[in-house]
């Protein structure tokens, strides 16, 4: 079973993916599986443990069940201020 999700990229991940957003048809059922897939595709240097993840504009656990149409953001280490 595959689902199509939208992934938005920020900061280092945006630069390494060379895009701000993409639609992905994926068999990954969780953010963890999706990141593993995208890390291979885009060559992300940051390991999952350095990131947080948001689904539909809210923080979510790495084993959150992804649904068709979800918007996913992988969040690199923040540095406001």
């Amino acid at each position: 079973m595959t689902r199509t999700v939208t992934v938005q990229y920020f900061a280092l991940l945006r630069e390494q993916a060379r895009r701000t957003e993409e639609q992905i048809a994926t068999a990954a059922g969780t953010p963890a599986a999706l990141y593993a897939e995208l890390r291979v595709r885009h060559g992300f240097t940051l390991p999952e443990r350095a990131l947080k993840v948001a689904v539909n504009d809210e923080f979510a656990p790495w084993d959150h069940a992804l649904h068709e149409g979800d918007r996913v953001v992988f969040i690199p280490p923040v540095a406001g201020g």
Partner: protein
Amino acid sequence: MPHFAISSQPLDTPALRAAMNDVRAGGFVCFEGWVRDSNDGRRVLRLGYEAFVPLAEKEGMRILGEAMSNYPIFDIRCVHRIGTLELGDLAVWVGVSSQHRGAAFDACRYVIDEVKSRVPIWKKEHYVDGDSGWINCHILPA
């Protein structure tokens, strides 16, 4: 009323401060984060900030709500700038009003500490030597 915002425009600090006038308040504390000319011994030329705005504003409001719950203050507000900032520019502003000053200091410090560690905002430093880098993102694969 607590308010957290992400702004792509320069921050108007007199307006931000004037909006918090309150005759019940005896103390007002504000913090400003400025772009400084060096970091970790490297000479900085300018900074670029970006934010995941919808979640940044949600998380920012949660932090302000925590401050309102945890300290006896009247109001607390925070605005964070995004975009390209030059040396000396204002990156973040936090203002707190309270009856007594101790709570305002404590709440202001709480908010800036939490904003820096929890709100999805990223900072890229551009150095005088031509190099650049995203702060806190220099992590090698496990």
